[in-house]
Each structure stands twice: as C-alpha cells, then as structure tokens.
C-alpha cells in the first residue's frame, strides 16, 4: 500500500541559503508590527481597558442602526455595535465610564432599560472595572515575559547558550508578529489572546527544540561537515515531522475556527497564525541564528564518547 508522503524522503531544500530572504521577510513583518502598534496600537478588549460588553439576541434580524441610536442617546461615550455570528445577534461594547466601578454597573442597568423589549435574550454581559483591567494587563505581561525567560533558561540548560538565544529570538519573533497581526487587523486583544500567545510560544519552541535536537545530534556525528550544510541537513531531516505536526494541529484548529463559535474565533485565528509563523521561524530564524552565533561542529561541550561515534560511523 502506498502511503502519503507529504515530504519525499530525499528532500533537500536549501533552506539555509535562503536565510537572507527570510531575514528580509521577518524584518518587514516585525517593522509592520511595530509601525502598526505605534500608530494604531492594539484593539484592547474590556478585559484590559475595562468597560462593558453585552451580547444580545433579538427576535428577528437585529435593527443595529436603531439600537445604536437608542444607546447613543444614553450618553455613555463610545458605543460600538456589531453583528455577531448571525443577523439576530449583536455585540454591544461600551467604553469605560468615568466614576469608577459603580459607574460601570449603572451602565448595564441603563442599557437594559433603554433596549427594553427589543431584546429577546441577554446572552452575555461582561463588566470589567478599571482596577481589574489594569491588574489583568500586568498579569498578562508578566506571564508572557516569564514564559520567555523560563523557556530560554530551559533551552540553555538542555543545550548550549547559542541555542538558547536562537530559540528566544525565534520566540520573540513569533510573539511580536502575532501581537502585530492583532494590531494590523485590529482584532480584539483580550485575555484569551494572551493565552493564545503563550500557547504559540509553547508550540513554536516545541518546533524549534525538535530541529535543535537534530542539529545537536548531527554536530556530534559529522565533525567535518560545513555548518551551512549541517543545518540544512538537520532541517531537511526533521522537515517531514515539522510539516506533519503543523498539518494535524492546523486541521484541529481549522475545525475550531469554523465550528467553534464566535466567542472562540479570534483565539483560533491567533493559534493558526502562530502555528504557521512558529513553523517558519524554527526553520529560518532559530536555525540561522546558530550559524550567525558561530556554532560549529566540535564546538559543543558535551562531546559524545568515542564508542558512540564509532558505532555511528560503523552504521554509515
């Protein structure tokens, strides 16, 4: 029986030779992210900036223009309305009210009274006060920073320091471009986005570790191979696995994106982006950094014992 081979066994793409083009792409991505973050910033959800979010379902197709007029009359500052998933569902966002936590509470009551009978069902009401919002931003930033540090420490401990730096550069690349894409597309950045970013970090490092593991193995095995070829070889050897895992993960995530419901869609989007960018970065950013950091065969501390080398050579 013929098996499907996504990547033929004798594949030998010259990945590393393409690294300069990859650098250009990455730098452009990062620049675009930075510019977008600087110019339009992130579209923070109420988790972080506080405010009120109400999801309502109306009997027939919702009269969004009418609702907007009704709610604007309440004079609660910026009110955002959008269709949410289907014509009967509307998501209402109301900005943080001046006057502290009590003022937020009063807003919900005012909205419910104003909308009255036009709403069939209040599907979701979320009110986040200014105090909690600030704390959540802090906790989110700390957790991302700590995750990066912990992962760097782990890689450092398990590999050489050059690998640690390579992994973290790749990771930072993935985190920055993910946050960047949220800014560019002005998708809502909320608590679950932070969760997505951390998971992307985990996934991306997972991918990087697999490639690094193979690089380390090959460093011990082939002492005279030029580094460019060795990296190329390592990436190609693991390519089949990298692609397979990305495909299975993407299959699951696409199911989540299309079927998981409106609430989870942005989260699934972030993850899909993360899987793609994470796969890309472990091939080009992480591996190419090793070249740039001067890792070369025989330079690692933990050289294998002679017996293992002999056994490996004997098998060739």
């Amino acid at each position: 029986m013929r098996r499907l081979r996504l990547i033929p066994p004798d594949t030998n793409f010259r990945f590393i030779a393409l690294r300069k083009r990859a650098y250009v792409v990455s730098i452009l991505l990062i620049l675009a992210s930075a510019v977008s973050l600087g110019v339009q910033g992130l579209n923070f959800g109420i988790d972080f900036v506080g405010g009120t979010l109400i999801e309502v379902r109306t009997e027939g197709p919702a009269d969004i223009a009418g609702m907007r007029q009704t709610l604007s009359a309440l004079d609660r500052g910026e009110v955002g309305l959008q269709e949410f998933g289907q014509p009967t569902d509307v998501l209402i966002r109301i900005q943080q009210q001046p006057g502290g936590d009590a003022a937020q509470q009063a807003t919900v009551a005012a909205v419910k009274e104003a909308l009255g009978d036009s709403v069939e069902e209040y599907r979701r009401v979320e009110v986040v006060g200014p105090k909690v919002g600030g704390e959540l931003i802090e906790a989110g930033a700390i957790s991302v920073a700590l995750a990066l540090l912990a992962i760097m420490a782990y890689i450092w401990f398990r590999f050489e320091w050059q690998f640690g730096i390579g992994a973290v550069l790749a990771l930072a690349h993935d985190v920055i471009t993910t946050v960047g894409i949220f800014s560019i597309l002005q998708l809502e950045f909320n608590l679950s986005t932070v969760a997505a970013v951390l998971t992307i970090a985990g996934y991306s490092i997972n991918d990087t570790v697999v490639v690094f593991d193979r690089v380390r193995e090959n460093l011990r095995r082939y002492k005279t191979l030029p580094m460019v070829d060795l990296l190329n070889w390592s990436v190609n050897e693991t390519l089949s696995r990298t692609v397979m895992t990305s495909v299975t993960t993407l299959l699951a995530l696409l199911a989540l994106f299309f079927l998981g419901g409106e609430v989870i869609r942005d989260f699934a989007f972030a993850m899909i982006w993360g899987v793609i960018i994470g796969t890309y970065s472990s091939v080009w950013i992480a591996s190419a950094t090793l070249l740039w950091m001067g890792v070369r065969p025989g330079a690692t501390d933990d050289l294998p014992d002679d017996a293992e080398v002999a056994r490996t050579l004997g098998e060739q």
Partner: protein
Amino acid sequence: MLYFARWKIVVILAICLLGLIYASPNFWRPGNVGSDLPSWIPHKTVNLGLDLQGGAHLLIEVQTSAVLQERLEAVEDNVRRSLRDVRIGYRGLGVRGNAVVFALRDVRDIESARRLIAERDSLVLVEIDDSGAARLEYPPEVVVDVESAAVEQTLEILRIRLNELGLREPTIQRHGADRIIVQLPGVDDPDAIKALLTQTAKLTFHLLDQRNAEPSAAAPPGARWHKGTDSLGQELDYLVEKRVRVSGERLVDAQQTFQDGQPVVSFRFDSVGARQFGRTTGEHVGRPLAIVLDNEVISAPRINEPILGGSGIISGSFTLTEAQNLALLLRAGALPAPLIYLEERTVGPGLGQDSIDAGKAASIIGMVAVLVFMVVVYGLFGLMANVALVFNMALIFGALSLLQATLTLPGIAGIVLTIGMAVDANVLIFERIREEARVGRGVIGAIDAGYDRALKTIIDANLTTLIAAALLFWFGSGPVKGFAVTLAIGIMTSMFTAIWVTRLMVVLWVRRRRPQMLPI
C-alpha cells in the same frame, strides 16, 4: 525490544481502563442514564465553567478601609469620654488619615492620658510628644488583622444570604486580601441578587427627635436627618436622635409574615436586646420609634405600650419580595464594610449551550480529520496512534472528572489543540522509524531506535509547552486557567499514550506477525 515486562503491560492497560471508567460518566450526562448504572462506576462528571453552563461570575471588593475608619472613630469616641470623665483638657480631637490626633491643654496630663487610653484599647499605639500633641495609630499588623477579619465576616454573611436565596450550588470564595468571588450557576439576570449581596443591612432603633426643625436646616446637636417613607409611601425627612437605643446586632431572628394582609417582618431580640428594647419602649410610650436601615427610616411607629417580650414587627410599605429580602438580610446580619463590584461576567443559558455544541462539533470534526490523516500517512502505525489518541481523550476527560477541574470554553479549545498536538509525539517516533529503516536497520532495530531517539526530543519539546501552561495557570484567571488545565493535562496524557500505549501495540503486533517489512 520485543520484551515488555508483564507489570508494565498491566500498568499501561490499567491506566487506560481507569481513564475510560472515569471519563464514562460524561457521556451519558444528558439522558440521566447514569442513575441506573452500578454504583462502582464513578459518577463524577467534568465541572462545566459558567461560560458553558450559563451563570454569573461576580468579583467583589470589600472596602476594608471603611472598617479602619470606623474603628478610628470609635477610638476618637473613647478618647473623648475617657478624658472628659477625669477632666483632662484637650483640643483638636479628630481622625486624620489613619490616625486619631488631639492636643493636651496641659503637658502635665501626658502620662495619665497615655494610661487612660491604653486601658481602653491596648492595641492602639499612643504617641504624645513633649508639647502634648498626641497621635494614636494602629500598628500595621493590627490593621491587617482588622481588615482580614472584616473580609472573613463579609464572606460568612454573604454565604448565609446566598444560601437563603435557595440558588443552585452558589460558590463563594475569598480571592486575595480583600476580594471575594461569587459564582452563581444558572443565574442569567443577577441584578436583584447583586443588589441584595451588597446591601449593608445595618439596622438600628432610635427615638424620633421631637424638637422643631426644618429639613433644609442643619440638624440640632444629638440628632440627624434621615430620609424615609411614611406608611403611605410618601417620601419624608425624619429628625432622628443620634443615640442608638437597640442595634440590629441584637436580633436573633427575622421572618416575613403578614399583618392585616400586608407583608411585614417580625423580629426577635436576644436577652440583652430584649431588655434594651423593653426599657426604651417602657420609658417612651407615646413617642415614635424610628427603625433605621442603612441610614433610611423604613418605619416610625408610635410606641403604644411597653414591649417586654423582646419581639416586634416592622411594617413599612413593603412588597412581598421586599419584606422577604429584608427578613433575609436581618437574619444574615449587617456587612462590616461596603462592597463594590469590580467585575461581572454573566452568560445566558442559550450562549452556554451554543458554546458546548460548537465545542463538541469542533472537537469531533477536528479529531476525525486528524484520525483520517494519520491513517493516510502512516497506515497501520497511524491506526495505532489513533487508538492512542482515543485513549488520550478518555484520559483527559477522566483526569478532569477525577480532579473536578472546571471545563471552560477556552478549555475546550485546549482539548482541540491537544488533539492536533498529541499525535506529534507519534509523528516524531514514526518519522524517526522511517529514517532508521532508510539507513538500513531491520524492522525491530528501526522501531527500537525510533522510540529511543525520539524520546529525548519528545520530552524536551513537551516540557517547554508545560512551562507555558504552568505560567498560564498561575497568572491567568477564570476561563484562561481552564485552558491551562486542559492543555497541561493533555500534554501529560498525550506523552503517556503516544509513547507507551503505541509502543505496547507495536510490540504486540511485531511479536504476533514477525513482519519483514515496515508498513510505514
């Protein structure tokens, strides 16, 4: 390689079986078939988070600074009385920030003033300098104790109020120094409950002050203006004596009943309260007695005769619900400090069910896609990986049920993600086996080397993801925490199933078939 210790086989099979058993209650949840099952089957199912089953999540802050202020006002009162009793002159007595300050008129009184204050309150720190300027403060640890006690007391009172409302499994827990999380499953319109929870419910009985005064003017000394309603529901200002005749703390019971067809609240005092109430009503027959709840006069009936039995009735212009709520609040007691809501998240039952359905659909489709793909790429080995994946799902649900962890919508996302990533370990192993076979190893050698060499990579790769999950758990809140839990459990179970369960299957297959070629 072909050797697999018997005990290892037993352990692997036992873990898989336990996973299936513990996961099983989740599958007949809707039809209630579970009740007919033998009792040895566990009945615990996964806890659904409020975002899935619908309900209200409230984050409340206890404004503990008010407790300290109240305590300082009591100190101020004590100082005033102590010094007046022994005729020690002072001026400028008052609460400034977190301290009570005053100045002695005569520096010769410093020592006696210090002694008097310490007698009354041994916890307060007294500082009086040579000029007679005094500053009374509580040390930080006492402040912490006072505030913590207030939070505990609030927790207890809220618990009683919630329990008496007859809700379905409300949970209430302390969160940090001065916060309380209340979770109300199945409550989709919490407005009434929210109002009831944060009402202070401080009840006091005062005499009405009968001096003539206009509500627009300042109240005469010893009295205070309070808003209120009369028996006809008319809004009115009452001039009430400041002195508390009986306090609500003396209540031992309160019930809603009817009087002349009107909903009223009957109450009963403890013995001290009964004595105070008896004396007040005995000495002031004919005068109106103001019943003040949270600075509002709810009723001011005339005292017709001394009430010595220690019980009475509050008849305001109540609706039935108002009377029931008032009785409940009086039974639970007054809150020691004001509360405010910092956060509210309410999900209606419709959205919750939709999320469950969507999550189910996404999981099933995602899983089927991965299963098909694995067979297409790896054939028989892919099938084995699929069996492992199914066991993995069982183990995740089993662990979630056993740990009584909460499954949230992001948690479902974590499971779907695990489906995709769980096969990674098998992919690593299978790709390695393919490679080893390509360099000329035999069937057994290739399988052996494949498992062996992939193992280190699998552990490295999964530990890093576990680190991310652990941080999410520590710093995340609510739903995000749920995601971290399923992700972490998923990583651990997938390592077990991908490495041991598939290996067992591969070994059994090799033993039986003795293949010459790898079907991979």
